[in-house]
């Protein structure tokens, strides 16, 4: 029955919604035409800690077009955070204006609603606020005494770490630091909300609809069924659109109060203060190894910060539990509450930063052992996830490293740093190993078949989202594959919370979950049609013929796919290896990434074109971690001085290299029936280490604090043992 292979899975077809996007016809959250709509705009606090003593809104209220100014004085009573520090989860409520307290700089303290965006924005400037200011906790160093353990999962230990260190011939103890970073997707956070008769319908760019509707319903105390979110297209998320943020609450409250649909767009500046971030991490690594390169001990201790009233931590140390064979292992995470907004998930939370520390430390230890860093990693390979005490469903890390080395020309690397020179340039090669959990979750979908002459059109519906990753295309390819119809005959409808429930886009689970859900719906449709005609399951028959035999012109079926028992017994990961060549200017501290090779083993590749896009995006974001991405906190006031994309430096085209991406064939049926694994986060993982390791190989300078800027490179000294 799979007669039309050309458009099924595995083919590098163009995005099916690509034309709509380039033609400007794909509608994003803020672009829906809604009658009678008004505009809301948030006002941010200009202190980091204290109490509002007065808010004078009279001047703002007098302005043309201004309909309302909402503050703690007239705000709707909402469900607030629990008194104790609560985990910032995907369903956490998003209360706003519930009291006078200010917990961080940029917290919303008022919201103006007006007939036009410009009127709202102007009126925001006329609101006068006074505060009773308190000294905010801003510095990590000054607040170390407040560090606490955020739950039982924060710590892990196996064997005897100290004994492992004693047993080692060579040891390494180093600290690595990574700055606050921001997701900053191109599309600003935005929503159009209509509160109508106790029910809420909104266009809002949320990555996970089924969790967002829970958060909104709980915040306002209304049934979940009365909240609908529509978001057919999302212009990037990188984690910032996972949670429901307070602009959604402001617009919903405004719509309820005014009785009209309300549009809100978070400004680029507010995207720094109000929609999440990756936190600052300080990672202390302790490693020991025998002369032959076998690891005897590995410890990974992370200190970072969280908000004063919400708890979030990224598990930087998890990578050190599973990547290498380590008889003695210790991992801890500590948090320090600061007057800075709550951190959140940013692409590969834990892995992106944790792998920088681990894979830099592995490179350092290899250098001390005088061992090739690839050989060192291969020496410590494991087919068992020692942290979880489960076998990996598949693990091709050694193959990734070997094939990558070959493709990259690793044999031309000079072991001694500073010896590969060309004019004013110092050339270096770096490598790192990458791993990222490949989750798979329960997913439902509904498929509607229509017979049109001899052709079958299929319409698939699910509450999935496409955050720019290619969901539309891979779901269409899946339906094409499992129904045996051309991809052009598949219509994909996603981005509506009223469609069958999926886990949404995040955590690299989207592709595997969505496609298996779609597969199951298609398989159910065919099975039911066969059953009606008493056709055996194994018989090959075109779906058009099935409909004809059933005398049907239309037929629909639902399906739900979920992880198997085998899945639960295994650790399911994607693996990869990154290779980078950098050219560092010997005097100015500027450098260029010349080449990158990324080899991944990430299950079945549904569409090499969209998959390639994911990886080069990840590599670029990983390069951004090294080149210049950092949000700087003003030490006296607690605000981010990095406040626009002119100051928050992401890589430009000229910064990036020739990129070679290789996917190794992998058939992992334990991961899921289709063998699909996530790649959205694999691409960013350990990229930073491969670049930093290349910089060491070029210069002999070990850079342990990201980003690696020209001023840091100029000031850094040479490592011991480098001539």
């Amino acid at each position, binding site marked *: 029955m799979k007669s039309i292979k050309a458009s099924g899975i595995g083919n590098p077809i163009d995005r099916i919604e690509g034309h709509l996007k380039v033609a400007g016809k794909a509608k994003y959250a803020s672009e829906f035409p809604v009658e009678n709509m008004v505009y809301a705009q948030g006002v941010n606090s*200009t202190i980091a800690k204290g109490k509002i003593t007065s808010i004078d809104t009279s001047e703002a209220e007098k302005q043309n077009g201004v309909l309302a100014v909402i503050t703690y004085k007239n705000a709707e009573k909402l469900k607030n955070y629990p008194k104790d520090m609560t985990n910032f989860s995907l369903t956490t409520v998003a209360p706003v204006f519930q009291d006078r307290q200010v917990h961080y700089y940029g917290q919303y303290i008022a919201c103006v609603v007006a007939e036009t965006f*410009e009127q709202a*924005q*102007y009126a925001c*400037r006329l609101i006068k606020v006074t505060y009773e200011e308190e000294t905010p906790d801003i510095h990590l160093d000054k607040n170390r005494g407040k560090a606490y353990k955020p739950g039982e999962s924060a710590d892990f230990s196996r064997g005897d770490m100290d004994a492992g260190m004693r047993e080692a011939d060579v040891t390494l103890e180093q600290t690595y630091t990574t700055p606050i970073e921001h997701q900053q997707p191109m599309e600003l956070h935005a929503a159009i909300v209509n509160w109508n008769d106790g029910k809420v319908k909104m266009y809002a760019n949320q990555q996970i609809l089924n969790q967002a509707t829970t958060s909104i319903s709980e915040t306002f105390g209304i049934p979940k069924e009365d909240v609908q979110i529509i978001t057919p297209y999302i212009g990037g998320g990188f984690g910032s659109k996972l949670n429901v943020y307070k602009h959604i609450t402001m617009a919903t409250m405004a719509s309820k109060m005014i009785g009209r649909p309300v549009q809100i767009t978070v400004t680029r500046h507010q995207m720094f203060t109000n929609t999440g971030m990756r936190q600052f991490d300080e990672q202390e690594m302790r490693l020991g190894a025998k002369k032959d390169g076998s690891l005897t001990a590995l410890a990974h201790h992370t200190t970072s910060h969280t908000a004063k009233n919400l708890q979030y931590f990224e598990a930087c140390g998890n990578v050190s539990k599973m990547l290498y064979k380590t008889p003695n292992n210790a991992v801890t995470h500590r948090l320090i509450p600061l007057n800075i907004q709550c951190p959140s998930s940013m692409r590969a939370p834990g892995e992106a930063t944790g792998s920088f520390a681990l894979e830099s430390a592995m490179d350092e230890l290899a250098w001390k052992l005088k061992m090739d860093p690839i050989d060192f990693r291969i020496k410590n390979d494991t087919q068992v996830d020692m942290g979880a005490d489960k076998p990996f469903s598949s693990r091709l890390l050694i193959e990734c490293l070997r094939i990558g080395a070959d493709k990259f020309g690793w044999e031309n690397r000079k072991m001694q740093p500073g010896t590969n020179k060309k004019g*004013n340039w110092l050339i270096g090669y770096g490598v790192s190993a990458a791993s990222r959990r490949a989750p798979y979750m329960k997913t439902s979908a509904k498929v509607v078949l229509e017979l049109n002459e001899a052709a079958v059109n299929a319409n698939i519906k699910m509450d999935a989202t496409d955050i720019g990753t290619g969901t539309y295309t891979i779901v269409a390819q899946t339906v094409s594959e499992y129904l045996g119809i051309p991809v052009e005959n598949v219509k994909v409808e996603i981005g509506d919370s009223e469609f069958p429930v999926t886990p949404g886009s995040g955590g690299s689970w989207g592709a595997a979950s969505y496609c298996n859900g779609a597969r199951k719906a298609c398989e159910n449709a065919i099975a039911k049609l066969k059953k009606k005609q008493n056709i055996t399951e194994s018989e090959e028959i075109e779906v058009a013929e099935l409909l004809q035999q059933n005398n049907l012109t239309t037929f629909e079926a639902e399906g739900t796919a979920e992880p198997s028992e085998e899945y639960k017994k295994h650790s399911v990961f994607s693996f990869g290896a990154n290779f980078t060549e950098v050219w560092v200017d010997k*005097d*100015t*501290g*500027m450098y*260029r990434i010349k080449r990158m090779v990324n080899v991944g083993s990430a299950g079945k590749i549904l569409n090499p074109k969209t998959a390639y896009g994911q990886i080069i995006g990840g590599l670029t974001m990983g390069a951004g971690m090294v*080149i*210049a991405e950092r949000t*700087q906190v*003003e*030490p*006296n*006031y607690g*605000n981010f*001085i*990095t*406040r*626009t994309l*002119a*100051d928050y*430096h992401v*890589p*430009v*085209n*000229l*910064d990036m290299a020739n990129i070679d991406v290789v996917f190794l064939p992998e058939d992992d049926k334990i991961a899921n029936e289709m063998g699909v694994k996530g790649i959205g986060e694999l691409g960013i993982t350990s990229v930073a280490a491969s670049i930093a390791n290349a910089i060491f190989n070029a210069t002999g300078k070990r850079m342990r604090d990201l*980003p690696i*800027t*020209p*001023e840091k490179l*100029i*000031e850094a000294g040479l490592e011991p043992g480098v001539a």
Partner: protein
Amino acid sequence: MRPFSYTNAKNKEQALQTFTKTSHYLGGGTNLVDLMKEDVERPDQLIEVANLEYKNITKNNEGGYTLGGMLSNSETANHPDIRKNYPLLSMAMLSAATAQIRNMATNAGNLLQRTRCPYFFETSMPCNKREPGSGCGAKDGMNALHAIFGYSDKCIATHPSDMCVALAAMNAKVEVQKTDGSSRTIDFTDFHRLPGNQPEKDNTLEPGELITVIHLDEPKFSDHYYYLKIRERSSYAFALVSVAAGLQIKRGVITKAGLAMGGVAHKPWKFTKVEKYLEGKKPNKVNFKAAAEMAMQDAKPFEGNKYKVEMGKKAIVRALTQAFEREA
């Protein structure tokens, strides 16, 4: 944004006559409009001058060229006469911002860019330049991007332009129209000012004065030039430190030198003493290193920008070396 009125000036007379104390001339708007959105600039009136007739590049009587103030940075930097005669200027201009911004930005507007100091941009923070008397947040705050030369107790901001660093090295002159109809010409080094007690004033323009043209001397550095810009990414980033170096070399001896640095002071920092030192010397590493030491000896960095001293020295040596070694 706050409400403002807009006038599209048909000629310079109209522009000058329409000007009031709270007006702002509008060129490409690549900096001014951003600052209005940030609520930093709050003009009552914008007078669009980008369409005035000063859009040409012509030869002047002194053997040099005159650049129209309203010509775009792209058209100027890519003009064949500029590329041939003033490649240092072209190189500096093309290192700035992005192609899109250079297409919009005017030459006169480039001179009037305001600092990128984060305290200037954030209206809730103290900044004497934005709000005289409110204090300087950068002095005891984040000052990695700030001045190491010529700052005052009131302000340690830097001027962000690349074009102006080259113009300082080249001894350009700025011609301005006054509201009374007369005009005056200002030496480039006198155009921008140090902060002193009035950091709100970036330059020596009187209220209402309109930059019409920029005069360039007879070309001297068309064979030996280099603009080195050290920055955090390869494009679309302001300089941490930049150096404009021009050398005129005859029979193995430097006969004329132009040397200025960006990212280190409230104005493009011209090393007049070092230029004189280099003149009559041989273009070699020893002399370039001595020049760099001399240039940076008066630097007084802050906690966050100590790196600029070493970086500045290395940048000067590199820029002079590149200028010298360039194939004529």
